[in-house]
């Protein structure tokens, strides 16, 4: 099992957001996590990635049988966890090239591999750009600075392609995207999918799931997973709306 979350409770500034999450993800699977706004979807993603403003008060997260709580943010990333941000951060003055080269080589170092040469690295950048259908020269620009909403999300998928994670969590990557950008993001995920990795796709709408077919759909409500099912659950949610879930709880 790749990821095993058991009875996870987490709070921010004393306010409990996650109130006992259980989730299991195996390699080769795509999980979708849906739910109304403010129910803890992004918190769950941040807690797995290790953002320290959240405090885990109970429960555990095992990743490849390792207790994630003992690992720093960067160690989790080097172990293969990738978070696609809902709001990618602009970092003026740090070029995409330096950013990605530093990241790729730090991850390689962690895994006992030699750093990529400049030539190898450039070649890799070009391949991955093609894979995620980036034609513009965003690589020489500062990280996300002045990128449009769509460019930022594509850039997340590009970084995912560069870092080849084992577990990718995409936090509302579809929000604010037009249909073309959505298709590019979904294509990126579908192309990067292998039997050796897994995706957790967090989304508010069913729309993205027309392009990325999940194996499992979970509904998060008030800090708990209240319903799990196959891809048909997403359609049911689309039809009945989240009020249906709210009424049941």
């Amino acid at each position, binding site marked *: 099992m790749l990821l095993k979350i058991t009875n996870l409770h987490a709070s921010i500034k004393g306010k409990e957001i996650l109130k006992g999450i259980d989730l299991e993800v195996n390699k080769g699977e795509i999980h979708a996590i849906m739910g109304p706004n403010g129910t803890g979807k992004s918190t769950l993603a941040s807690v797995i990635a290790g953002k320290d403003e959240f405090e885990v008060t109970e429960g555990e997260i095992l990743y490849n049988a390792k207790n994630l709580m003992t690992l720093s943010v*960067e160690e989790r990333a080097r172990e293969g966890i990738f978070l696609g941000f809902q709001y990618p951060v602009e970092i003026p003055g740090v070029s995409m090239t330096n*950013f990605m*080269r530093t990241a790729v080589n730090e991850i390689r170092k962690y895994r006992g591999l030699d750093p990529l040469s400049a030539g190898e690295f450039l070649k890799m950048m070009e391949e991955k750009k093609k894979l995620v259908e980036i034609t513009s020269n965003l690589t020489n620009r500062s990280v996300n600075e002045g990128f449009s909403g769509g460019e930022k999300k594509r850039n997340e998928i590009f970084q995912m392609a560069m870092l080849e994670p084992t577990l990718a969590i995409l936090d509302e990557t579809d929000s604010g995207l037009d249909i073309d950008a959505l298709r590019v993001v979904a294509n990126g995920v579908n192309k990067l999918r292998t039997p050796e990795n897994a995706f957790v796709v967090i989304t508010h709408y069913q729309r993205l799931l027309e392009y990325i077919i999940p194996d499992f759909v979970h509904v998060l409500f008030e800090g708990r997973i209240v319903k799990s099912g196959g891809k048909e659950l997403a359609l049911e949610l689309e039809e009945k709306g989240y009020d249906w879930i709210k009424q049941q709880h």
Partner: protein
Amino acid sequence: MEPSASNPITREYLLNLFQENYKKLIAGDTPVLQARREMAIAAFKKLGFPDKKTEDWRSTDLSGSLGLDYHYPLGPSEEKDLQKVFRCDIPHLDTAVIGQLNGWYVSKDVPLIELGNGIIIGSLAEAIKKYPHLIEPHLGQYTNVESNAFAALNAAFTTDGTFIYIPDGVKSEKAVQLVNVIQHRENIFIQSRNLVVLGKGAKLTVVHCDDSYDYQPSFSNIVTEIVLGEGAFLDHYKLQNLNNTSTLVSSNWFHLEKEAQLKSHYISLNGALLRNNTYVRFDGPFGDATIYGLYLMDRKQHIDNYVAVDHASPDCESKELFKGILDEHATGVFNGHILVERDAQRTNAYQNNRNLLLTDTAKINSKPFLEIYNDDVKCSHGSTTGQLDENAMFYLRQRGIGEDNARMLLMFAFADEVVSRIAIEPLRFRIEDMVKKRLQGELQICEQCVLHCSTPEHPVEFRIDLSKI
């Protein structure tokens, strides 16, 4: 000759020292220069050293620095190991390197270098002897001794320094690198005086370095007057890397005539207390001055950048960008005064000061001051102070970049907005290296050195590869 005793540098001590050494001090003066010296000591007598009640010194406390005992040399120091001291050249940069040791021009038996195209570089004292007509119209004519104690003190006592003269129409291909080195076995109080004159349409690059070479406390009062004739262009760099017990008050007075262009860069990397005074006066229309500053301070270091731009003529433009990173207990001041005079129509003046404070104990006092006497101007000023962006840190670390490297990337990116403006590539690479080393806490004073004085050039290994690929 040096007084053997070490003394507190007070107004009384200095006034006495002046009287006792009067004949020696005026020995090289022309009558005109002697009169200016008399005026200067009278002004210093009236002013004394600034204290915290002095308007422009409210946030910079000199009492600790002035409270020490110093030797005050009234002549050149014995020159030893100069070979070692002055091998501060920047690789791949075509420079004429000239040195000052403890404030005195190091002649190496050639007090004035005179080139075929009329360029003169060398000892100010020697130039006064040989070319008084080139000196008298300028020396002491751009400083304001009546209100500036350090300018007055400097003018009263200095008898030597560096003189650079670029005649009309001459564009110097070589950069001039002026290295001020401080080396003394006891505390030392240093004054030096420089004059740079660019004729009409002349062009020059000056790299002016302040370095200490040992770990003794020093107090330097350096005054440089720089004249840009009509249409002249000066690319000016001031690099500061002094030991942690040294105080530097460095004043540059720029005088720009019609259509002159100035680009000035202050890179302050180390020192106990650094005060940079930059005065720019537009004395003719269509002048253009850009002043960049970068300061990286930690421990209990203090940096004070005082910038006064006088738009005395119409149609000129000034731009200031000062950025600083303050760590631990470091403190900083930015004082930006823009004066737009009544007849300076169509003035553009922009000022920006941005600071990163890495701890709760680091402090910055940023004071823009715009004084505008006509309404056909475009002026703006901005000041921001903040911490490293936590969201950016999380973003970088989430991609596998370790915390130290993530901090380095963000700090370097912050500094790079200034460093990237350095037009000369070899110098930019060198300063990028120094900034990276400084941010990693690996920059030493001269022995390992700022400019690798005594070691052959090695490519510096960094954990982050920021090379352009």
